[in-house]
């Protein structure tokens, strides 16, 4: 997991080929990728250019497409970069509230390692507004940016083979909610009943790149 310090000077945004079936918009500013995705989808829709998937990374956006469409999609990506200033400030939907029971098995350990009380861990976690930077790892798993630096811890040395669905966790500079049971190496702060993944729903995931989230203490 990269930390801010490990990345040297900011690089100029760039557009590159990514094999014959994909193109990449890279070195975007922090938080810009979900907006760039939206702008790219809008531009493709108004010009009638078909893209297959538009995938968001922590600082990048990748579009997959027919082999012949690479050049025109990379042109659109350059346009997105030129007009990015206004798009990045666009106001998104209200924050999703996720009610959490702060009963996670790692809560005491996190408090001890961060040199604070469990109450202040909970307070810090609930007063932060997070935003989905990107999804990955498993379907519906969203990397939530915004974790206060006081709560930044490396992943557990030994990942757990089973983390229950609904586990609310932190690791490195991210928080996350496990949408389904899976293995995992994050620190578990609590649990939520909020349904984050349902293959029968459209969209199947509650949390998408750019979604803002607030955790509240479950009553």
């Amino acid at each position: 997991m990269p930390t801010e310090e490990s990345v040297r000077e900011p690089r100029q945004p760039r557009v590159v080929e990514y094999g014959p079936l994909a193109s990449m918009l890279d070195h975007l500013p922090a938080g810009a990728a979900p907006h760039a995705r939206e702008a790219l989808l809008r531009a493709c829709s108004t010009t009638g250019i078909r893209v297959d998937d538009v995938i968001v990374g922590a600082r990048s956006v990748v579009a997959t497409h027919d082999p012949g469409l690479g050049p025109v999609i990379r042109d659109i990506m350059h346009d997105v970069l030129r007009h990015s200033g206004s798009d990045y400030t666009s106001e998104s939907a209200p924050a999703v509230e996720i009610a959490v029971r702060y009963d996670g098995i790692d809560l005491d350990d996190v408090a001890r390692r961060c040199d604070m009380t469990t109450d202040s861990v909970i307070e810090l976690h609930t007063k932060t507004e997070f935003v989905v930077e990107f999804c990955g790892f498993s379907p519906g798993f969203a990397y939530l940016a915004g974790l206060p630096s006081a709560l930044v811890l490396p992943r557990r040395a030994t990942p757990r083979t089973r983390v229950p669905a609904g586990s609310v966790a932190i690791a490195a500079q991210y928080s996350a909610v496990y949408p389904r049971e899976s293995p995992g190496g994050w620190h578990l702060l609590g649990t939520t009943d909020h349904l984050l993944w349902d293959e029968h729903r459209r969209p199947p995931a509650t949390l998408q790149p750019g979604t803002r989230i607030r955790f509240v203490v479950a009553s």
Partner: protein
Amino acid sequence: MTLIVEQVGFTTVQDLGRVGWAHLGVSPSGAADRTSLQLANRLLGNWSAAATLETTGGLALLAAADTGVVLTGAECNASLDDKAVAHCQPFVMPAGSLLRIPTMRNGVWTYIGIAGGIEGPERLGSRSHDTMGNIVPLSLHAGITLHPGPTRGTALGLDTPIVPSDTERLTVDVGPHMNLVGNHVCVRAFRRTWSVSGEPNRVAVRLTGPSLHPRHSEELHSFPLVRGAIQLTPADELVVMLADHPTTGGYPVVGVVSPRDVDRLAQARTGSRVTWKLAVT
């Protein structure tokens, strides 16, 4: 036209996978070897993306009614009521007959195309079983009945069967992080012979080869992966993404294998030699 699964082995239902959900962490999935799946459907007169069975062996199917079938992909020791069946030649399984696919002769994945394609539930627009994301529209088990859709065209066979070819000279395009790792390191990597290591799976192919000593020292921000992307790991291994690949990764992508050649690589057994040809751009 109905088949009953008598023995599952390692078999999944596959079509050409899911499009449009990768930004939520959903892999494309679909056939590991897309060329062979499409060939099976073409030989049966099916829609080219119709769902088929994909197996590495241990499969037995009983026909509950006369059913048109074809085998493509890896050549296998297939038998219909103990009589050998030909590769890439559609045949009718008469009601009551048993098709066995115990083991492979070459390659990894055999496709059992079924006239009309396998019907059944879709998840997120596909019938494919995503082994990594655990998206399973139709879970196969002994005793399950497969229902093909209506047949559309006429079956035809190939005079010469198509079998997985060797993995010499896979075409590779430059990867987005080639500069970061060092062009000379990448060129050296693609001039050398690599070897497939690890058990075949639907997620990725792992290759071992020369020590490269890349100059790369900077950690990358997680970025999207695509099928065919070649990640260079800190242990000097190349990991090539297959159908059920994770949607994001963190190791530099030094090249992208051309889509047709990802199909060839997916069929490579442990120990197979792999060499490269840089795409002319």
